[in-house]
């Protein structure tokens, strides 16, 4: 493990969370955060954005041995900021511009000077949106839950 991970044991968890949220970002969310960025970094594309496939696996019986369910389109990008920080992004689908921006924000998130901005302007709103959407769906599903009741038959 590199030094950064020794100093900050939760670094992986935090970056995983950021990457997961960036993968869910909409075009509007990314563009808005990019437009409002106080100073735009110099960005060099390293790889992509490019679209390919990921073989999605399931497990036999739900929890058994893995099997190949089928593929999904995935777009990925790697960029290098002028400061030397590399950013990576991966997301389902074929939205190349979104993923390129997500990679830039992944790099900006790693830099102490811009992390707070990325958190406040992008990650927090995405997280809040997903929470609202999930809650709405869960409540809509809950309304279709069956309440069983027993019919009392006979006189007594």
């Amino acid at each position, binding site marked *: 493990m590199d030094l950064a991970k020794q100093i900050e044991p939760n670094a*992986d968890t935090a*970056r*995983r969370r950021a*990457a*997961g949220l960036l*993968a*869910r970002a909409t075009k509007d969310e990314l563009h808005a955060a990019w437009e409002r960025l106080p100073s735009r970094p110099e960005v060099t594309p390293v790889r992509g954005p*490019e*679209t*390919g*496939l*990921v*073989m*999605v*696996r*399931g*497990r*036999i*019986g*739900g*929890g*058994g*041995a*893995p*099997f*190949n*369910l*089928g*593929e*999904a*389109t*995935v777009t*990925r990008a*790697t960029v290098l900021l002028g400061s030397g920080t*590399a950013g*990576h992004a*991966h*997301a*389902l*689908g*074929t939205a190349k511009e979104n993923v390129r921006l997500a990679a830039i924000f992944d790099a900006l998130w790693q830099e102490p000077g811009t992390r707070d901005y990325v958190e406040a302007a992008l990650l927090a709103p995405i997280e809040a949106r997903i929470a609202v959407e*999930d*809650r*709405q*769906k*869960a*409540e*809509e*599903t*809950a*309304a*279709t*839950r*069956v309440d*069983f009741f027993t019919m009392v038959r006979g006189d007594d």
Partner: protein
Amino acid sequence: MYVAVKGGEAAINNAHRLLADRRRGDRSLPSVTIEQIVAQLGLAVDRVMAEASLYDRSLAALAIRQSRGDLIEAIFLLRAYRTTLPRFGTSVPVDTANMKIERRVSATYKDLPGGQLLGPTFDYTHRLLDPSLLTDEAVEGPARKDTTGEHAVRVSDILAHEGLIEPDGEFAEDHQAGDLTREPMEFPMSRDLRLQALARGDEGFLLALGYSTQRGYGRNHPFVGEIRIGEVEVELEVAELGFAVSLGRIRITECQMVNQFKGSSKAPPQFTRGYGLVFGQSERKAMSMSLVDRALRAEELGEDIIAPAQDEEFVISHSDNVQATGFVEHLKLPHYVDFQAELALVRKMRSDIEAARKGDRGEMQEAAE
């Protein structure tokens, strides 16, 4: 001698131009958009994704539009497209226990943790055509209710507590999940490969085979332990990061079929299982898949192989509708030379038989005189 014949170029070009015209149809009507197909013909999109074995709603919708709604043609288009893309990797297996559930029903337990959640189902509708859909009447939004927060435990885990059901299918530690898209098919095949083939198999074919098991052709006494539909995270190990990241969510349908099993020379009496997992919302397909998965385990469980649904080579070799349509439909392509050869052969056989018959008659006449 082989004579190549060329021709038909102008006819083909004009046929494709005509196809494009008919696809667009009446120009006084607005053109259907990809977003509309995704939003309003979502289950057709799901079927195309499942059988093309490629999860991408927009591309599936594009294929449906391009194919004029011919879903097998759309599946073919999407399969062809996937061959143009590189593969970045293999996901961490999706965790259906932590699905964001949109529908979940069990036919084996009435009261179970998480409850029976009907979700957006056609079940219990009266199957009467709805005239309000002839026009664009406003549709009221869904009802909402507070969630209980109860975790929807998998039914197979509930049954596992009693030890009356076999565990989830396992292989030896060193077993690598096979991939039909990378290696040629060989029989007999392991259950992981069969499930990959069934997950992309034709819904109609699997439905008919599943139905055949219910009607007695390889009966396996099924109960729907559970069907769940919802979204799961797709995670990929990223080499540059050294850990798995979420790429987003996909919607899938899972069916756990629980089957009565009297026991055999190889296993004690217990419940056995068939498993179905399909891209999108497709419970007919997931149920059919789990029936066929269970039927194809006949040999593993020491059952007699007496029915088509239990015949692995028959089922798996014929489940792919792109392969099937390719071979069936190639019959309409020019076979002029083959047919001429057959025609000559039949003429020759006829004339030989007639000559022989004449010869016989001649002999009989001679004998009579």
